[in-house]
Structure formats: structure tokens, C-alpha cells
């Protein structure tokens, strides 16, 4: 499931090579963890969880995907997160009718561990599969 999702996300990224998000990143779109010493801007996508919602009959699993955007300055990380939202929000990536919806875009104001760290923005998407 995780591998399928990761492949689908990367394929969606490759299929939209002319999109602003892909133009800003180049090939710096990584699964799970960024390689050490990677340059900025870059983005990392993570599978967060798959939960059986079970609220009503017929409800499937809810899959949550997180994309972390990193950039050296605040303006750039904001631009990157807007482009990321544009590319992935309401995108059908893993099957018919499974539309990803942006749940929240956190820390667009910039979150840094220390002065040496990049600015970070985390976008979380959900879909029912």
C-alpha cells in the first residue's frame, strides 16, 4: 500500500513536470527522508497513516499523506507550499474517485529548528480509498 502510494505520488509529480512545483524543485522530491546534504528548495512526502474509519457502512480506509516543503527563505517556502497545494489538492492519484483533499497547511509562517535549518511547511492531504 505504501509503495503503491509513493509510486503514484512520484508519477503524478513527473507527469506535471511543467507545473510550478516541479519547476521549483527540479528532482529534489524525495520519499520519506531527504538525503543528507540535499540542497534547497526540496520537498519530502510521507505516508502518515491508513485508518478504517467505519463511521458508516461502505466507508473505506482513510489515507493521510504529508508533504513537507523546505526552503532557505520564508518567501520561497510559502511559494512552494502554494504550488504544492495547487498540484496535489483535489488530485486523483491512487484510483478512481479517490480525490486527495488538503486537510491543513501548517507552519506556512515558517518553522525552524535553529538558524542553520531550512524553513518548513507541512501540508497534509486525506483521501478515502
Amino acid at each position: 500500500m505504501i509503495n503503491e502510494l509513493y509510486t503514484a505520488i512520484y508519477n503524478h509529480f513527473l507527469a506535471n513536470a511543467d507545473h510550478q512545483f516541479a519547476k521549483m524543485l527540479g528532482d529534489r522530491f524525495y520519499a520519506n527522508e531527504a538525503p543528507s546534504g540535499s540542497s534547497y528548495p526540496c520537498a519530502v512526502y510521507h505516508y502518515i497513516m491508513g485508518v478504517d474509519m467505519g463511521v458508516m457502512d461502505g466507508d473505506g480506509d482513510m489515507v493521510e499523506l504529508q508533504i513537507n516543503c523546505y526552503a532557505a527563505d520564508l518567501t520561497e517556502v510559502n511559494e512552494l507550499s502554494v504550488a504544492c497545494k495547487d498540484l496535489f489538492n483535489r488530485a486523483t492519484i491512487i484510483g478512481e474517485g479517490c480525490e486527495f483533499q488538503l486537510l491543513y497547511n501548517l507552519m506556512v509562517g515558517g518553522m525552524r529548528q535553529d538558524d542553520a535549518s531550512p524553513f518548513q511547511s507541512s501540508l497534509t492531504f486525506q483521501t478515502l480509498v
Partner: protein
Amino acid sequence: MAIAKKKKKDVIAHGGFQIETEYLDGEVLFQRLADILIEELTPVFSSMEEDAKRRCPVSGQSERFGWSPRKSGGAFFGFKEKATRVKARLRSGKFKTITQTSLNERWRSRSSGRLKSSISSTVVQRNDRTAVLGFLEAGNAEAFYARWVEFGTIKMAPRPFLRPAFYAHYSRAVDACNLAVYRWSREND
């Protein structure tokens, strides 16, 4: 009136964060209904809290203690080093009594759990009395790294503990809402 209408996460002070959910959002929520709802939702949120604590990663690694300009902005952290007074020979050939720390005492295991103990939940009625709010939150001044653990950083993949706990009990929260409305309607029959 909507059940679990809005769901959002806000960054709160000290780098922590919370999941806030509105239940039975309406024009005016009857006081009795709100009371029943709080009564039904409180155990669900307590379960979420327990679940989040169970999922919360607790570090078992050791940390160096003593003075660190890098960590804590130069503050002293951990345990005190074992200091002994020894006679040291200076370059000039003279002897001077100095304080030396024992290398064997430089590493100690860390009794952590700061993040785990910072997890809390509350169910309250909103000030304007139009909804009941449920909060599940983590992080405080000590566990300032809560959102880095939950959301990850450039050097570390996320290890979510709050969100899975919230969604694992999501259907129970919706059931609690339905039950509260049912109980309230029975009382008014």
C-alpha cells in the same frame, strides 16, 4: 447542526500543537444537550489521550550532560558532573589545584517522557455556547519538540502519534454525538 463539523490544527505556544474539533455546531446549543455531549465525549477524548501516550515515541538514549552552548542556549542541563579537585602541573612547571570532571560520569541515561507527559485532552463548551470543542494537544515549554516529532524535519521522518490516536477514535466520537442527541431527545419526550 453538524456533527464534527470543523477539524483543524493550530500551532500553540512553545512549539506544541493541538487538534481541535467542533461538535454539534449550531445556532444555539441547548445547555442540557451540551452537558450530555461533554459527558459522552470526555471518555472518548480520554481514550484518545491514552492512545496518543501509548503511541508517543520515548527516547531511551543517553545524553551528555554538562555545559552546552549549542543546546538550551547555553543553559546547564542534565545532571551535575562529578567534580574532583586534583593537582595539575602547569606549563610553567608550577602546580595548581584545579577542578576536574570525571570522564566516566559524563554520560548518563536520560529519564525522558517529557513529550508523553505533555499530552492532554479537554472537552469544553465554546464561549458563545454554539458548539462543544474537543482538544487533543501535545507539547509545552519542556517538550518544545512535539511538532518536530509529529511532522518531521529535514533530518528526521515524522513519527506521528497524535493524529493516528485521534482518527482511531474518530468513529467513537461520532457515536458519542449521536448518543448524546438521542439521550437529550428522550429526556424531552
